[in-house]
């Protein structure tokens, strides 16, 4: 095959741009003047937002992905699914940069933005990877910067502890996943995701090895998305890490992992893979259904008794991972397109929703130095806008119209029902009602309760307020008028799988 650089270049254009940005930020921070260094945050945020336009506008030519053509020697998938997740990750990174800007000890250090950019780069490679080698390298390019970010606040015991825990558990999980990869390679003699499935099908035995590899890979993914029983790191890391980092970990690592999970499961363990009479797909669907049910239930029930806002959001994010897994499990039906679209849409709206809630929490924690929910009392009188933004975010997490969360859950449940997973959908609805309780409690505390500092106003810095406002607007728009175009775009993503 002749190598055509100009045809292949667009598939990695955002990554190239991001790498250039990382170098620029590194040098601007090292050698720039005081003024330049202060502007590193805007350079990073604006460039990432602009780079997001590239995959947004430049959709790949269907001729490229419909027959499963891979670029760069079979390493990179250039299909709409990868493009959708790249847009999400870039926007998530851009918003994170702005939200971190005012945080003392975090946002005033230029290297913070550099590490965020590199982590985003890893996430983008994950969303388009189609080879075990690239999957592993991308996964670590995302994870290693996140370990650094979690312990970013110097001289803070909780931050140090959070980074250490995240690192030890994370390295353990990726070592297990790597061993699963080595089994897959040993069994099939190829590292290309699509070729692995073909090779396993033609071999037709070795059930135990395939199952072992499958379980190891699911364990790795379960860790990255924070699903039960691999969730134990989540609350501690979320609580201890600096809040902007928590926001970033909760959206970017999760979105990239779901993109890869969708691709990995459909490519390596497809529906027609039958080994020794066992349909492999049934096995992993059942596995994911169980993980999804316990994640939702445990996350929501433990969240009920949390008093720390960051821990509450940690358990809420475990539950949200459970909901999203419903969409992955729905891949089993006649209509996998619906499943892919629902997961993509859910992640798209989840990024904005979670960044909005965390954005509110970051400012509150920075101004009051308290993470207790009870201290949010009277927030409506202290800063009406902040209370409003957080309310929109919490309602969206709870799935109340007219916010984006409603349609996110609606599409997931629709996909589940279409895939004959009615029972799972019912459990999820019950869980959504439980979850609504603790989200509404926080809103009640902000609007009804009276606190000791009721008359002490909380000022919102201008840029910060605008970015929160725009995020809130996107959350509302995603629940009203731009639902259809975004969902149609997400449906396109299924085409390449």
């Amino acid at each position, binding site marked *: 095959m002749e190598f055509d650089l100009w045809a292949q270049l667009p598939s990695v254009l955002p990554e190239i741009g991001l790498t250039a940005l990382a170098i620029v930020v590194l040098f601007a921070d090292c050698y720039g003047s005081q003024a330049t260094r202060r502007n590193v945050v805007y350079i990073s945020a604006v460039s990432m937002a602009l780079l997001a336009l590239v995959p947004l506008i430049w959709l790949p030519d269907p001729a490229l992905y419909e027959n499963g053509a891979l670029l760069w020697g079979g390493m990179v998938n250039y299909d709409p699914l990868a493009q959708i997740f790249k847009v999400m990750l870039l926007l998530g990174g851009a918003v994170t940069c702005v939200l971190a800007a005012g945080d003392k000890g975090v946002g005033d250090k230029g290297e913070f933005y550099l590490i965020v950019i590199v982590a985003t780069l890893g996430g983008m490679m994950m969303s388009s990877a189609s080879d*075990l*080698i690239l999957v*592993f*390298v991308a996964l*670590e390019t995302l994870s*290693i910067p996140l*370990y*650094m970010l979690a*312990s970013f606040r110097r*001289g803070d*015991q*909780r931050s*140090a*502890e*959070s*980074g*250490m*825990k995240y*690192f*030890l558990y994370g*390295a*353990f999980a990726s*070592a*297990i996943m*790597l*061993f699963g*990869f*080595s*089994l897959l*390679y*040993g069994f099939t*003699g*190829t*590292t290309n995701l699509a070729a692995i499935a073909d090779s396993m099908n033609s071999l037709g035995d070795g059930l135990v090895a395939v199952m072992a590899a499958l379980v190891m890979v699911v364990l790795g993914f379960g860790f990255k998305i924070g699903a039960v029983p691999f969730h134990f790191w989540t*609350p*501690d890391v979320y*609580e*201890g890490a600096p809040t902007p980092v928590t926001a970033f970990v909760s959206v970017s690592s999760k979105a990239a992992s779901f993109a890869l999970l969708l691709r990995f499961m459909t490519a390596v363990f497809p529906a027609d893979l039958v080994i020794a009479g066992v349909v492999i797909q049934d096995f992993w669907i059942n596995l994911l259904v169980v993980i999804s049910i316990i994640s939702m239930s445990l996350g929501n029930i433990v969240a009920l008794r*949390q*008093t*720390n806002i960051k*821990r509450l959001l940690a358990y809420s994010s475990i539950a949200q991972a459970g909901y999203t897994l419903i969409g992955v499990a729905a891949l089993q039906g006649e209509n996998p397109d619906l499943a892919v679209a629902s997961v993509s849409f859910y992640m798209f709206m989840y990024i904005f929703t979670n960044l909005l809630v965390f954005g509110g929490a970051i400012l509150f924690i920075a101004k009051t130095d308290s993470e207790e929910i009870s201290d949010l009392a009277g927030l409506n009188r202290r800063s009406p806008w902040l209370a409003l933004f957080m309310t929109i975010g919490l309602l969206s997490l709870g799935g109340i119209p007219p916010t984006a969360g409603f349609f996110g859950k609606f599409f997931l449940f629709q996909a589940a029902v279409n895939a004959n997973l009615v029972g799972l959908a019912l459990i999820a609805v019950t869980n959504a009602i439980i979850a609504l309780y603790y989200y509404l409690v926080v809103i009640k505390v902000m609007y009804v309760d009276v606190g000791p500092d009721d008359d002490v106003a909380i000022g919102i810095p201008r840029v910060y307020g605008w970015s929160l406002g725009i995020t809130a607007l996107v959350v509302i728009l995603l629940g009203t008028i731009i639902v259809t175009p975004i969902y149609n775009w997400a449906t396109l993503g299924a085409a390449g799988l």
Partner: protein
Amino acid sequence: MNAIGTEPYIILSMVLFLMGALGVLIRRNAILLFMSVELMLNSANLALVAFAREWGQVDGHVFVFFVMTVAAAEVAIGLALIVNIFRERQSINIDDLQQMRG
């Protein structure tokens, strides 16, 4: 040349992997824990190289080079984190990492 088949290598790599995994679960010293994780990574490397020989390909070898590079980066970060926690706590016993609970 192929006097030893692939199976012994795979069995060895599985033994190493289990030793590493047990080490992570049993050890309480952060550095020993970290060494156990590295042992797991290297057991996967051994399996990859053995499989590559079995298939007569270089893909597995290439994979191993990337894994080694990543592991080196992980060592750099991991040791920095351990130094960081030692400065804060004067201890690297992970049972002492209990400030957050609930």
